């Protein structure tokens, strides 16, 4: 550790409170609720964590973990309920207020400024000052000291953040948090982008912080990390806090059962008992930028293959790679007789591949919101309604009407802006747009997220119809019930590759969550 540190920002990691205070929780939440546009994110949550403890928060997608963290860190304000720090009621209206109370969060989405240097970023909001100006030397030394503490001496404090690799950026993010001398440190999947060596360093750091009586909240999808580090575990499900217990009192299997339990409220069309068809879409060993690590799978004509796993395991990148959006993808792709991945979305949708992608974010990647419904429907297939360079109005309205009828899109006039439609109908427009290209391969990136139950059912039925017409469907969903109800097979992604393929009766919630946490690889209680 460097001996000299800026006087205005002492590098102390321990708050120096007497350890016998640790019976009182450092952070306590009572009756916290939060709703988004009618949907429940957190419901009457009581939660507490102590100093000198590493506390894991577990739960499947949509269990409310992220909302919980955002409320504690001051990004969101709860609709109701109270929050206490060391017995004092607090209310954070922005992240800065939480920071000054000693609550520091390392977010999944990086909070670094790419065009500034590492040293600038580490003491971004409260740099050491001299005559009212930033003391660059003190700031540099501080950055050096903090980086040394997390064993990142290889990071130059004068380098720009945008020139660093993803894993180095994540370490700078950790350095930035540690430099604020937190009393409560929240790590939201903070280890997901790190190298093995860095992960060890972070483990060591968390141990040190525990010795210094700091409270840590650790959100991770990796059970082996949780097993190794944490002393207390809390399970969330469906916006509620289910149970908190000490490590070692429950087996992996019991923990998975606590995480399951969502009521299945949807009806799915029956699955045909057909033979598996020959592969139409095949890819082997797809790798890209450390986000995809050798993913392999095949999808036959007439088959719906589900893509599961926890958020951010490479599912999105896999779809983008198959659709020609990413550059520098390694591995082989074969569609029908055509070998090689498409080089652009324009190439992907053309003969002979005829791939389409219903993207994750319909508002930015799926639709041109101010343009009309009709324009949006035709956006991918203008060539089909054109005569020479001109769009034929008769063909256009015929095609638009057919698409609207097929998907039963509820609208006033096709000339209205697509932004005027409800979420479910907007999603139907995106799907209809691609169906007009008559695709052979349909990639669906979480198409039912944030839409109403009725429209979901229609989409399930439509998917089965499309499969029956002989199209190959790859369907990513964050909702396990959908994967179970809709898919002929389910492939689970973990850390950039496909770790399990489930079929038939093996497609059940326990198997999916077990594989998503990659449990069968580490735990003795294999679930697949």
């Amino acid at each position, binding site marked *: 550790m460097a001996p000299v540190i800026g006087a205005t920002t002492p590098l102390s990691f321990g708050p120096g409170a007497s350890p016998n205070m640790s019976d009182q929780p450092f952070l306590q939440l009572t009756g916290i609720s939060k709703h988004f546009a009618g949907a429940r994110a957190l419901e009457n949550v009581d939660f507490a964590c102590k100093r000198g403890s590493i506390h894991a928060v577990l739960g499947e997608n949509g269990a409310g973990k992220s909302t919980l963290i955002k409320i504690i860190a001051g*990004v969101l304000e709860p609709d109701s309920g109270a929050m206490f720090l060391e017995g004092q009621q607090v209310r954070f209206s*922005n*992240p*800065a*207020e939480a*920071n000054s109370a000693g609550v520091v969060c390392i*977010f999944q*989405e*990086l*909070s*670094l*400024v*790419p*065009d*500034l*240097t590492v040293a*600038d970023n580490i003491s*971004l*909001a409260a*740099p050491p*000052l001299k005559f*009212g*100006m*930033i003391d*660059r030397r003190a700031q540099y030394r501080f950055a050096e000291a903090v980086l040394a503490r997390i064993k990142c001496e290889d990071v*130059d404090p*004068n*380098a*720009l953040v945008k020139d660093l690799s993803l894993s180095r950026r994540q370490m700078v993010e950790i350095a930035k948090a540690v430099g604020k001398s937190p009393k409560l440190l929240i790590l939201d999947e903070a280890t997901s982008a790190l190298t093995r060596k860095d992960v060890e360093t972070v483990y060591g750091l968390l141990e040190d912080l525990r010795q210094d009586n700091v409270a840590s909240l650790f959100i991770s999808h990796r059970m082996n990390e949780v097993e190794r580090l944490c002393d207390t575990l809390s399970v969330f499900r469906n916006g509620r806090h289910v149970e908190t217990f000490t490590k070692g009192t429950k087996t992996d299997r019991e923990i998975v059962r606590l995480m399951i339990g969502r009521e299945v409220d949807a009806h799915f069309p029956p699955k045909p008992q057909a033979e598996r068809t020959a592969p139409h879409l095949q890819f082997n060993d797809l790798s*890209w*930028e450390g986000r995809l690590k050798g993913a392999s799978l095949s999808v036959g004509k007439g088959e719906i293959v589900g893509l599961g796993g926890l958020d951010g395991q490479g599912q999105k990148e896999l779809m*983008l790679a198959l659709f020609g*959006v*990413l*550059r*520098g993808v390694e591995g082989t792709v074969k569609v029908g007789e055509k070998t090689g991945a498409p080089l*652009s979305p324009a190439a992907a949708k053309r003969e002979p591949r005829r791939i389409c992608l219903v993207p994750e974010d319909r508002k930015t*990647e799926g639709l041109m919101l101010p343009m009309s419904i009709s324009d949006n429907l035709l956006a991918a297939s203008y060539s089909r309604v054109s005569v020479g360079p001109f769009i034929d109005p008769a063909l256009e309205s015929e095609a638009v009407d057919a698409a609207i009828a097929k998907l039963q899109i509820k609208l006033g006039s096709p000339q209205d802006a697509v932004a005027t439609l409800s979420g479910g109908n907007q999603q139907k427009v995106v799907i209809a747009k691609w169906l007009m290209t008559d695709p052979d391969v349909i990639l669906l990136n979480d198409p039912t997220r944030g839409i109403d139950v009725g429209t979901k059912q229609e989409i399930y039925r439509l998917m089965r119809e499309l499969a029956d017409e002989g199209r190959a469907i790859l369907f990513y969903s964050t909702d396990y019930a959908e994967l179970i109800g809709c898919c002929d097979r389910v492939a689970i992604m973990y850390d950039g590759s496909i770790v399990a393929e489930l079929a038939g009766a093996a497609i059940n919630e326990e198997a999916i969550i077990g594989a998503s946490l990659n449990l069968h690889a580490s735990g003795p209680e294999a679930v697949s």
Partner: protein
Amino acid sequence: MTAMSALSTNMRQNRGLYGAVILLSIIYLIYNILHPRGFSSAVLIQNANESVAIVFVAMAQTIPVLLGGLDLSVGAVMTLAACIASVLVNGSPLQIVFGMVVTLAAGTAFGLCNGLIVVYGRIQPIIATLATGAIAIGLALFIRPKPGGDIDGDLNWALTNSLWDFVETYGLFDPDAPWFAPVAWIPVPLLIILVFGVCVWLPFRRTVLGRTIYAIGSAEGAAFMSGLPINRAKVAAFTLGGFFASCGGLYLAIQTASGNADITQAGAYTLNSIAAVVLGGTSLLGGMGGAIGSLIGALILRVISFYFRILSIDPLLQPLVEGIVLLAAVSLGAFRVLRVKNRLELFR
């Protein structure tokens, strides 16, 4: 870390700035070789005089651009300041100082209003300043319906010549003193540019507000999540822009000994300021670059126009040549696109 690698890091991070410095050095060297009286103090003084206004306006433009916006009112604020100065900067020494202070205060206040409109009116900078720029021209026409005005003659002489003339005009000390001789040839306008560049911009860049401006242009979300004073920084950016623009206007009035509410000239200055900012290595997307680069960029634009005079090229060709230089310079910055691996990121 060794000094060498620190230097190379610095070079890499400021490629745009160093590129502009090298370009300027080369073209100004060639200019002096071609000029019949090249490498003389007189040529340097004349060139510096003609550069001050555009340098200030380019520095004014830089700060909103760092935020990721554009300020279309800089030329108009410069014109307004020049018109105010042409009325006030004369009379007794005290009156002259008062006139200069009022001129600068007026421009700064105008910049402050721009900032408040952008931040609290939640209007995009480009459209807010298009409107306020028209207002500034309107005010300038009101103050000076016809070109003219009265500027103190001594001030005009002292600020548009060498240091020797400055000392001699105001009788500060014996201008022929031997210790003074090595610096006596330095043009006062050059000194003004350097003093403002170094004494205003560099310290400002090192304040939390200055850094916040960079952070906003680079990643506004991250700046918010880090608890930086976003609104204050935006207001400060436009205010400082107004200050620099009025510095340019004040000097223009002193140099020409008059004020002129010339709409065409205001527009040309605004557009040239954007060109200078880009030439100086500042990204129009924000977050990267600085006012020193724009200073160099403005000088490059000026030197190109000087070439037309000494080579007796048709001045009608000037926009064509300037356009080609600008296009070539910005093309170098577009290579970034080739490195992006996820093409969706190109559209964000």
